[in-house]
């Protein structure tokens, strides 16, 4: 006799114990520490902080460890924690001009005030597996410019002086907050940039790539990429002035795009903007290409490609939402499936009866919706 399946609770507990076991792996090896992850897998930590929208390297490292290195799972864990945090204030806008520069390059000028600064980049490394990294080899101290580099004019400021690039005007509007107000399309650019900043790196990368291959082409040049440490300041009403509360590493990308002009606007370069927590040029560049593509309507450009479609891009760029909904398909759906089974059986019976009468054939008809 059939007995309904019971014991979900015990099964879940056992699964979690097994997960903990696999996470720890071979007990004869030392467990990795969050400090090791923060120091030696720092770009993984940066990605988790960026897409979780929470700047806390040690918590991000903990999330990576807890997630067994699954980045989207780690992002999700850190996001779920972030959402419970109280808000005690709003920071002043970061000033990327005065940040302590670790890397700064421009593809539009051979040389410029402050120069090109390569910084800690994979560029020009030969991607050959390096067996000497195994173990713990001695690493010599790097040589850096004394005192660091700060207060470098941005390439966009240089172009701005000649009115060759559109001027960004501060309209004094309070920026929206996508984590506190429900999105309503069309979004403001501030809200759009917030969504892109926490959007999935891979998704934005693919969309950015598609614009380069002709799906919403925007003729981009890297005006400037800069990576460095920016000071976070907050206004304290009781004091009447702003105080620094900490520092964050950010990557900023200013993409310069051609614009031939329209009846309302003169020919001018336009901007795509990317700003990401941590060191992530790939993400910042992809973000700036997507930002520019999404401004198509602003410039009266024809919207023909996915990357230019705000509702499409923003509704699908969040990997925590996407992974949840895709993976929910593994939850039981047998009530709906039963309903579909019954329907398909009835339709098949009707189809066969029609065939018996007409003796002819009919094509299969698609029916029903995908599982929800």
């Amino acid at each position, binding site marked *: 006799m059939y007995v*309904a399946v019971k014991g979900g609770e015990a099964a879940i507990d056992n699964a979690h114990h097994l997960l903990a076991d696999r996470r720890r792996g071979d007990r004869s090896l030392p467990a990795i520490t969050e400090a090791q992850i923060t120091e030696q897998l720092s770009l993984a930590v940066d990605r988790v902080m960026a897409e979780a929208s929470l700047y806390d390297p040690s918590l991000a490292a903990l999330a990576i460890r807890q997630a067994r290195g699954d980045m989207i799972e780690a992002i999700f864990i850190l996001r779920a924690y972030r959402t419970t945090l109280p808000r005690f204030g709003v920071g002043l806008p970061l000033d990327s001009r005065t940040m302590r520069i670790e890397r700064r390059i421009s593809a539009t000028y051979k040389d410029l005030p402050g120069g090109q600064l390569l910084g800690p980049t994979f560029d020009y490394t030969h991607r050959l597996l390096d067996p000497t990294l195994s173990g713990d080899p001695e690493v010599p101290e790097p040589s850096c410019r004394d005192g660091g580099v700060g207060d470098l004019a941005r390439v966009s400021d240089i172009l701005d002086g000649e009115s060759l690039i559109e001027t960004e005007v501060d309209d004094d509007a309070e920026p929206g907050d996508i984590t*506190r107000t*429900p999105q309503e399309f069309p979004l403001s650019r501030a809200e759009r940039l917030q969504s892109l900043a926490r959007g999935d790196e891979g998704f934005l990368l693919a969309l950015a790539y598609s614009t380069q291959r002709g799906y919403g082409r925007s003729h981009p040049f890297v005006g400037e990429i800069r990576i460095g440490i920016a000071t976070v300041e907050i206004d304290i009403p009781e004091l009447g002035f702003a105080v620094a509360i900490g520092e964050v590493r950010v990557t900023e990308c200013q993409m310069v795009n051609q614009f031939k002009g329209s009846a309302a606007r003169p020919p001018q370069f336009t901007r795509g903007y990317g700003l990401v927590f941590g060191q992530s040029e790939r993400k910042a560049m992809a973000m700036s290409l997507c930002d520019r593509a999404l401004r198509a309507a602003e410039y009266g450009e024809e919207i023909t490609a996915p990357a230019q479609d705000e509702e499409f891009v923003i509704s699908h760029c969040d990997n925590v939402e996407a992974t949840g909904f895709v993976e929910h398909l593994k939850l039981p759906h047998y009530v709906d499936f039963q*309903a579909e089974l019954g329907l398909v059986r009835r339709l098949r019976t009707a189809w066969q009866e029609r065939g018996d009468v007409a003796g002819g054939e009919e094509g299969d008809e698609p029916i029903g919706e995908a599982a929800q």
Partner: protein
Amino acid sequence: MNAVTYNFAYLDEQTKRMIRRAILKAIAIPGYQVPFAAREMPMPYGWGTGGVQVTAAVIGPRDVLKVIDQGADDTTNAVSIRAFFRKVAGVATTTHTAEATVIQTRHRIPEHPLKEGQILVYQVPIPEPLRFLEPRETETRVMHGLEDYGLMHVKLYEDIAHHGRIATAYAYPVKIAGRYVMDPSPIPKFDNPKMTMSPALQLFGAGREKRIYAVPPHTEVKSLDFEDHPFEVQTFTEPCALCGARNVYLDEVVLDDRGGRMFVCSDTDNCESRRAETGVQS
């Protein structure tokens, strides 16, 4: 590192207040999808985060919670959500429909009739009934505003033209109080008639899509149909093989690989109660 602590029912009070305002608005405009600033929850989007947020906003320490998925109290996700509220709210839980004050559900409405004072919270994946006809939110919002549901009727009509019947077996669209067309969540259309004039409050939460909507008690819920093709529900030829119930929704259980099948109640609580009353052993 900061100490990690959580409020009663996980969400902070400001967030609960925001959600309650959305719920009140939803009750005031039956069937209308109210946008709300859904939070990340500690379970994945698509796994009931909307329902969990609604439950967290309405539940109090003296409530008794029941959680079902596919009609059953012991499916893994129902177990997980029930355990979550036991942990973060310390509320009493039950599997008995009649004893619960708040019932969170995915894909079913309990067979036992609901009564006044009970709240049924539905987990909703895609709140927009027009989404598969028109993917753009900007468009569907206008269609609801203008009460322009022609597209939906054309879809249902095309079903009849192609298949001789409406080929929607679950998430069957309904019209609330003669105004808004609403997605009842992916419940089988078998359950649709239970929604109309129900004395219980029905709340719908879609976390990923950030929408809340409601059917207040004693509100008309009409499944869309045509005069010559009236709405009809699924029927089963056999009764439940365990409790003998008829006119309930059944799951088809595969017994072997030689075509052996049996049909048993999808609502496990209803099935168990009936067997306890009649003394039938499974």
